[in-house]
């Protein structure tokens, strides 16, 4: 039984970690790659890697940090390898087809699609900010980039999204 696989020093249980964090890992990969099947494959690889590295994980907090970091790295690698979705700058993405109101169910899918078209770094920043609810300092630590760069990516991406929706609203008026 895999549930018996534990790190000897910390007592961390692999099965428990997987149960607790499978949605986190899958969702990070899914929001990054916008492909459910590929995201599941990436998530599986992340947990296999955790299984192999369990003895190096020192605490549940370390496991959480490790999973976020490795998932983003794997998702970036997978995105590059597949090159399935040519990177398009957010500025180049078509505006929403109709005026979108908050609470519109189409809005969420539109937002996910727009996020998936961002370049790697701002995409990772936005996903960690709004999926994981992390602050810029935590995101900076995971992605290994300065806090100022994280804030810049956040501000720029939000401004572009706002501009896109505002332009559309003005067009409808």
């Amino acid at each position: 039984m895999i549930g018996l696989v534990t790190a000897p020093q910390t007592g961390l249980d692999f099965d428990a970690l997987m149960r607790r964090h499978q949605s986190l890992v899958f969702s990070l990969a899914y929001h990054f790659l916008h492909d459910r099947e590929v995201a599941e494959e990436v998530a599986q690889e992340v947990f296999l890697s955790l299984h192999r590295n369990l003895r190096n994980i020192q605490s549940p907090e370390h496991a959480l940090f490790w999973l976020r970091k490795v998932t983003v790295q794997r998702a970036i690698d997978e995105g590059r390898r597949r090159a399935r979705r040519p990177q398009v700058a957010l500025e180049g993405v078509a505006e929403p087809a109709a005026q979108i109101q908050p609470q519109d169910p189409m809005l969420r899918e539109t937002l996910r699609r727009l996020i998936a078209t961002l370049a790697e770094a701002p995409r990772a920043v936005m996903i960690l900010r709004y999926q994981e609810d992390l602050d810029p300092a935590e995101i900076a630590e995971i992605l290994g980039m300065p806090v100022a760069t994280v804030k810049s990516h956040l501000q720029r991406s939000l401004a572009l999204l706002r501009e896109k929706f505002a332009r559309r609203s003005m067009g409808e008026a």
Partner: protein
Amino acid sequence: MDWLEQELKNALERKAPSPDFAERVRRRTRGDGFRTALWPQRWLAAAAALLVLAGAGMGYRQYQGNQARQQVMLAFRIAGAKVNHIQAQVKERMR
């Protein structure tokens, strides 16, 4: 947090993977464990193969050394025989 950030949170909320996700990972970790368990055996086999190759190499070099020594000895014997032959002819003519 304005409406856009709230909608981003909603759009990017966590989703569950397929129901058999954990089981598929478990199956793969069992295979992984099997492969991990085979690592020491593989290392031993590789080390044994290296030892055999190294031994064979040394043996071959020894064989080559013996061959060379025998050839040198043969050359000395031939040269010695020639010298003896020449010495015998010189002695005969001097008589």
